[in-house]
């Protein structure tokens, strides 16, 4: 009985510590990799001779809601006839293939629709890998609201 009480005290201490936000194991070591604040507005990354701007709306960017992705290119003209696409995932965790196929929206802009799913681990750092056929790919790492 004494052992039982001690164990329960121990267990409830752990629960208390874990339940208090920001105490033990707040958790997402990948937050340091964030290179883009999509909640605030579009982000830009560079490829050789091409600048890639990614915008996601509506803002702030939330999981499990329909999102519109817009990629705008500037610099060298594309030689490929294939449209760019975006692969959504989490750094360091395989979440399965989640591709947003983009279509030309006129000029150097491409648009598509997609959903960022929710990870029960609580990690909120997501990665959008934008691939420009025949030109390369670039990564936008950002926070998502759950």
């Amino acid at each position, binding site marked *: 009985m004494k052992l*039982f009480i001690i*164990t329960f005290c121990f*267990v409830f201490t*752990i*629960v208390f510590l*874990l*339940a208090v*936000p920001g105490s033990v194991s707040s958790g997402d070591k990948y937050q340091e990799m964030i290179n883009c604040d999509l909640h605030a507005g579009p982000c830009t990354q560079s490829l050789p001779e091409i600048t890639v701007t990614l915008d996601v709306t509506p803002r702030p960017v939330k999981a*499990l*809601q*329909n999102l519109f992705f817009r990629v705008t290119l500037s610099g060298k003209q594309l030689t490929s006839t294939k449209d760019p696409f975006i692969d959504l995932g*989490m750094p360091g*965790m*395989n*979440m*399965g*293939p*989640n591709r947003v196929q983009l279509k030309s929206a006129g000029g150097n802009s491409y648009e598509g629709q997609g*959903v960022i*799913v*929710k*990870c*029960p*681990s*609580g990690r909120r750092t997501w990665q959008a890998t934008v691939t420009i056929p025949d030109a390369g790919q670039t990564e936008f790492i950002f926070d998502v609201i*759950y």
Partner: protein
Amino acid sequence: MLSTETLFLLYLSTGFTIGFGHCIGMCGPIVVSFSLNLKEKSIFIPQLLYHLGRITTYAILGAVVAAAGSLTMITANIDAIQKGVMIFTGALIMILGLAMTGWVPLGKVFGDHSSPGGFISKGFGKLLPKQSTLVYLPLGLLLGLLPCGPVYTALLGAARAGMDAGSTHQGVLTGMGLMAAFGLGTVPALFLVAKLADMGWLKSRAIIYKIGAGLMIIVGLLFIVKAIRY
């Protein structure tokens, strides 16, 4: 666009690779808990029933999102249920852990060698003589609702396949089949983990059982904490 056969293979292989990466970390504690709790009994049928239940739930979800043509519409409605399932899972793992310590007489609930007439077993006993084993099927059905990132991603694909299908009927069948293929793909990894926890050398050591029970209680608590934060 990919053919339906290619999509099925893609979902099966995705489930397989996700199983060995993501699922072992996230759902491994559940199958290990079942495995440890079965002690001397064979894990094969209980695990089979659990996975059958889980795959059935995935298939139903696949059919629903394919019919709706949207994942977000469905998740908005089952969010609270998923949270409840996560809390239930945490509580279940904790109870199984406590049962292993001997502090909770779980046999009175599920039925075992000393108490074959547990109240859940009695209910299922009217259906089949294999009393305590059958409980793993409804557990799998329920735990298939656990919130899971890769399952959501697979459901996104099922919703798209539903939209691309020629008719609602065809879409529902495709969505159902794709999710079943995905679930089937995750089975080998989880079964392997369950089998590793079922090794004889582990069972022969009471101290390992006690440590396992302690870990299960902690893992169960973590599930509950995650559910509260979800």
